[in-house]
């Protein structure tokens, strides 16, 4: 087969998946041109990714919640509340960071499981159950911060999660060495996994894309990883937030695409009755998905508190809606069973890019909201149109 026709076919077959990436690139290029390159500067990209972190991890969890045809409105204030609890642990109770973080994550899981029980066992619509949770945790956040107001966190280790960078070892031509090494390691790992994947497929005697296409794809992805690494290495290197974000994506991507559990989640979302009749425990899957959502809400709370170096009385306001927006921009479908974790991250980065770019351009906040709203609507319209085409 001709190289070009094969490439065209691939793009056409995956237009829905590639759509977001293309949109992200278009948005970034537009801002880069409009800001004379300022947008793509190391410092800005680094800030942009850090500011996306606490929404991105929520969006990952939210994607799975939406995949199983539910919604979770409580995550914003759960994040705010648990962030405040973390701050209290660290400042007032003197609990060390390495204990605080796992304990807070476990609290998050418990909250999520409680939502899961209300929804799967008792049968309360998730919208209502988590709306109640949202109000309760908003009150709880006010309650724990009532006496002190904003709680300042002085623990440098903890604050590094939101502001710090991985150590550099040494600077090479003003570039962050360890970050470069991590980037190179990432590329090597990626190429290795692609190669072994291909080898496996050949072993099974399956069709694989032609060598030329395969190499092109690897080159493009490697170049992107390399470019992002290079940009970040030019400032302070990888931040801990980015490291955590990437770890969450890799973990959840593996979970959703390569495990039995992941399959069960998508089966439940795709057709709950058929899933039940296929021997899948729908209730259990609901618990797991809400439990994971709770854990990621706790993580989001930790990231946000560390970023501000303090817990405020209004932390978490509207996080849930930003996460939902990011998930939808990332291609999740409310009809259930469709949506990718990687999409959620791209969705979160798209939304963060819009904010960042418009801030650089000095666009008023009123227009920023309108534009972000329009992008959300456009993303869903695109999604619905491409799905109609396929059906």
């Amino acid at each position, binding site marked *: 087969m001709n190289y070009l026709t094969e490439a065209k076919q691939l793009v056409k077959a995956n237009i829905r998946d590639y759509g977001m990436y293309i949109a992200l690139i278009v948005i970034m290029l537009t801002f880069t041109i409009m800001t004379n390159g300022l947008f793509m500067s190391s410092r800005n990209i680094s800030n942009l990714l850090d500011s996306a972190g606490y929404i991105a991890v929520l969006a990952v969890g939210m994607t799975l919640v939406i995949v199983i045809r539910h919604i979770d409105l409580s995550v914003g204030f759960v994040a705010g509340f648990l962030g405040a609890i973390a701050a209290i642990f660290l400042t007032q109770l003197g609990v060390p960071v390495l204990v605080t973080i796992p304990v807070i994550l476990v609290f998050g899981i418990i909250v999520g499981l409680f939502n899961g029980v209300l929804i799967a066992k008792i049968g309360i619509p998730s919208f209502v159950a988590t709306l109640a949770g949202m109000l309760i945790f908003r009150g709880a956040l006010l309650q724990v911060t009532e006496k002190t107001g904003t709680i300042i966190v002085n623990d440098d280790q903890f604050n590094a999660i939101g502001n710090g960078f991985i150590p550099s070892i040494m600077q090479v031509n003003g570039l962050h060495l360890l970050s470069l090494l991590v980037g190179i390691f990432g590329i090597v790992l990626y190429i290795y996994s692609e190669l072994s994947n291909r080898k*496996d*497929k050949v*072993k*099974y005697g*399956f069709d694989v894309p032609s060598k030329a296409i395969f190499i092109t794809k690897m080159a493009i992805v490697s170049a992107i990883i390399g470019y992002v690494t290079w940009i970040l290495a030019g400032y302070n290197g990888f931040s801990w937030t980015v490291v955590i974000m990437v770890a969450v994506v890799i973990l959840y991507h593996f979970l959703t695409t*390569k*495990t*039995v*559990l*992941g*399959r*069960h989640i*998508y*089966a439940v979302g*795709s*057709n709950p*009755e*058929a*899933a*039940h*009749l*296929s*021997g*899948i*425990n729908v209730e259990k899957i609901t618990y797991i998905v809400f439990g994971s959502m709770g854990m990621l809400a706790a993580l989001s709370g930790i990231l946000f508190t560390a970023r501000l170096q303090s817990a405020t009385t209004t932390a978490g306001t509207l996080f849930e809606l930003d996460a939902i927006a990011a998930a939808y921009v990332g291609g999740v479908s409310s009809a259930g*069973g*469709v949506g990718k974790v990687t999409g959620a991250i791209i969705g979160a980065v798209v939304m963060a890019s819009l904010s960042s770019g418009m801030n650089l351009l000095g666009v008023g906040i009123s227009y920023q909201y309108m534009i972000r709203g329009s992008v959300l609507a456009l993303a869903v319209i695109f999604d619905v149109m491409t799905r109609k085409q*396929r*059906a």
Partner: protein
Amino acid sequence: MSSYILEMKDISKEFPGVKALTNVNFKVEKGEIHCLIGENGAGKSTLMKVLSGVYPHGTYSGDILFEGQVQKFNEINDSVKAGIGIIYQELALFPDLTVYENIFAGNEVSKGPLVDWNQTIVQATSMLKKVKLHVAPETLIKDLGVGKQQLVEIAKALSKDVKLLILDEPTAALNEDDSENLLDLLKELKSQGISCIMISHKLKEVISIADKATVLRDGKTICTLEAEKGEITESVIIKNMVGRDIEDIYPKRPDKNIGDAVLKLDNWSAYDAQLGRHVVENVNLEVKKGEIVGIAGLMGSGRTELALSIFGNPKKYKLQGNMHIHGAPKALKHTSEAIKAGIAYVTEDRKGDGLFLLQDIKSNVSAAHLKGISTKGVLNLNEEVKVGTEYKNSLYIKASSLEQIVGKLSGGNQQKVSLGKWLFTGPKILILDEPTRGIDVGAKFEIYSIMNQLINEGMSIIMISSELGEILGMSDRIYVMAEGKVKGEMAIEEATQENIMELATQ
């Protein structure tokens, strides 16, 4: 002017790939009760949907004359305006609204833009009197029994000045007293000049009430019988219903090798708390190794409920009685336990609860047995492709690739994917619920061949089917169900279409 209130002339209706109606002629005289009879899938409901405007004018060929006028109904409202009222088997009432609100739902008594509730109640009360339902108009629908709900439906139709009332299996869900009440009411309405078309499977009712009966089979009018001429008798009706010879579409099995019992039910009952009645009652049933057991019966006879109660009871019926699998007593609490015990259930409604329509072929095939393609919870996606390919080839699934979305396949291929999904679980007992519904003859033959092959490999099959031909063509032994009970069991040698139909319509 003719004495016919309704004449349907040469009605033909096609769906993609299926001819549902072919030149059907159907006439109803003023003030008569006309029964419409036929097997499941004979075209009765389609014909009524053409008449009521569900399928708008232009999507079918032929003419509808109502009160001598050619009618071109574009939607249901048009037929309602003309005076046709249809009451479906599934009642269309709002359970949380009152009787009077339901009677006038969509047809509100109004003064300008406002609803006149007092007038509504007055009129509703007189309607209730007409149908002899003695309840307060303020009663909520959900507080009424099914029989009374049916009467509310009729009252609703009467409130729209109905001239022709169509009832689709009105007594299917009713007990005997309620059924009798209903039939008496229909006679009463007849004396007031309201004509009535009744679709029914219960031949005794037909005989007691019908002035005329038209039999449909395979989308064609077979005959119209008249009570006056003494033509409406059980034997005549059944003969006309099943008349077709069994075509030679059932592949022969070379030799039968039937072994010991693998599944045994004793006094097996299932109570549905939501419906408030037994959906399966005192069933004794046995399935042997290498045997195809046919379960015949009409829709709503409890066949699917029986299958579900065996298959891990996903509907949470209250079960009674004993189940033995390979001689050992079993209580299966979840579908996953049923699968582990070697049972597989290919559902009747493959789109509704059988398949994951948005997913591709390979992930549908592996869905019920992911263990088979994973180690320690991690999937081997290449193994999945391999398995998918095997089933695609062995079941003759026609698709461009394994990545094709199942929702886009034809009915026959979807059914094969569904079958593949269950075969991959390695079952000993395979329950097939309407295995060939809505699929073409070629695919049917392939599915029958696959069934025979599985039996030869030592599997046991329970085949639930409304198609008598299929039951007679494939089974080794037959159980006939009606009203949740097994009404009879027969070896294939002694089974005929007539004696099955007789038991099923009791």
